């Protein structure tokens, strides 16, 4: 299979085309603008629509419109732009409209900077918009995975009629790695008989995100709840790397950090350390059960993130106090180095690491 060296952002954009995305609405922001740039050239070639909106708010509402017609549609941005899109994402979740929202996140809060960060974990996994809604969140860790998870994102959006977020960061978006373009097969999906196709085709349909009767809205929210439970049962994904059967430390990290932790495990092996890495691939639904099982096996957990401590809350929910959970982070666009994490592990193994 031929390998092509591609930038993360461009690989994601091409994967969207190949997954059948024909509508893209966005507004430029570093470090993800290459997605827009690539699609502005490629979408017209395949008969699609590329539109640079006047703002992020306009873009997400255009996504709502295209999704309501049953089309595969995507928008992308970075932290500050995603903040602007949150109202629209809540509306999309309420209207049960499938779409893909990409966040190549950067250092925050505020306008922050353009370097890689993972500080949008809460925003992605807890909503950020109002109301009781959830979005699936996929966390790729390589350029090849940006391709496979973009396909998966469109599939899951249609399967659940729900927005799906891809949470990357500046490093994944800007780096180049070889990519192979093989056919990706996913299970069949039900027909979109809910989509609004215009006058003259069957019964009248409505796509709404308002329900004034509280009894009816409660029923609807319970229906959403079932959907979120089904996501947890059927579509939680993770990877385990390193010493799986008898670890004496469990590392947990996602995306860019998980790559660094793989290097850490290889270096640690030279010291005789038996370390396992659990890399959540879906951040919502989060692999709580696996975290607990692996934490019990290892007896000690170290969470590494590029934020002040966000995913660690999910890790602790999974561990349920059955093992101490340590934390190491770099923030503000700084990326942890292999040496720093090795030092932290040495401290923990000597019993000096603070929880």
């Amino acid at each position, binding site marked *: 299979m031929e*390998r092509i*060296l591609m930038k993360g952002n461009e690989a994601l954009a091409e994967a969207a085309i190949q997954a059948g995305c024909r509508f893209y609405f966005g507004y430029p922001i*570093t*470090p993800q603008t290459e997605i827009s740039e690539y699609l502005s050239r490629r979408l017209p070639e395949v008969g699609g629509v590329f539109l640079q909106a006047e703002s992020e708010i306009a873009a997400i509402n255009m996504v709502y419109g295209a999704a309501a017609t049953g089309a595969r549609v995507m928008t992308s941005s970075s932290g500050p732009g995603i903040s602007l899109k949150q109202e629209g994402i809540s509306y999309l979740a309420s209207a049960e409209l499938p779409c893909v929202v990409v966040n190549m996140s950067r250092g925050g809060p505020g306008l922050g900077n*353009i*370097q890689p960060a993972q500080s949008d974990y809460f925003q992605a996994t807890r909503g950020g918009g109002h109301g009781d809604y959830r979005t699936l969140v996929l966390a790729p860790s390589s350029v090849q995975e940006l391709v496979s998870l973009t396909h998966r994102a469109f599939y899951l959006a249609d399967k659940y009629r729900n927005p799906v977020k891809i949470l990357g960061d*500046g*490093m994944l978006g*800007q*780096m*180049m*790695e*070889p990519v192979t373009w093989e056919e990706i097969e996913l299970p069949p999906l039900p027909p979109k008989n809910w989509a609004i196709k215009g006058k003259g085709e069957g019964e009248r349909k409505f796509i709404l995100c308002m329900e004034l009767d509280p009894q009816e809205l409660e029923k609807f929210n319970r229906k959403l709840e079932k959907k979120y439970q089904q996501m947890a049962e059927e579509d939680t994904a993770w990877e385990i790397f390193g010493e799986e059967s008898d670890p004496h430390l469990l590392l947990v990290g996602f995306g860019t950090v998980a*790559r*660094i*932790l*793989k*290097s*850490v495990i*290889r270096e640690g092996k030279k010291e005789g350390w038996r370390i396992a890495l659990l890399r959540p691939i879906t951040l919502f639904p989060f692999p709580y059960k696996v975290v607990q099982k692996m934490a019990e096996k290892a007896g000690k957990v170290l969470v590494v993130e590029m934020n002040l401590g966000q995913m660690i809350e999910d890790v602790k929910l999974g561990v349920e106090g059955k093992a101490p959970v340590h934390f190491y982070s770099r923030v503000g666009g700084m*990326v942890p*180095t*292999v*040496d720093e994490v090795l030092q932290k592990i040495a401290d923990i193994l000597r019993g000096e690491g603070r929880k």
Partner: protein
Amino acid sequence: MMHHEILIGGFGGQGILFLGRVLATAGMLEGHEVSWFPSYGPEMRGGTASCTVIISAEEIGATVTDHPDICIVMNEPSFRRFSPLVKEGGLLVINSSLIRENCSRQDIEILKIPANELAGKETGVAETTNMVILGALIARKPILSFSAVKSALEEILTGKKKNLLSVNFKALQVGKNFEEKERQ
């Protein structure tokens, strides 16, 4: 096991990212795992630029490195910043056209090459400085074959840029010849 962590630093406009891309593409064409990560700050021409390329036999973890085993510095700021990081026994390639300072490290191998002068005089195209350096690097440390590097250039310089191939090939040869003379 094959594993190289290569750090390249210089001014924006010196072709730092391009040089990295040629290395990564050549590594890929030889069947290795590769990654390329640029500094992507707001700086463009005239600012500082750097880029990390990793070429390995196994799945690549971290795409940035604390201790490169090969480091190319094309200007003084990157010389000062990166030369202390080079792994013991590693190779530091210094563009001596722009770097007058001496490197005091005894524990690494140093290759000095007046790449700007060589590019200007021998190829007539100043922009090929990066390829002169690459030619010298591959001659000193054959981590990749010359034919893979040439194929990488053919893969990257397509369309309107195809006419730049021959001068880039020439620049590689100029660097290679310089290194061979140095060794004698």
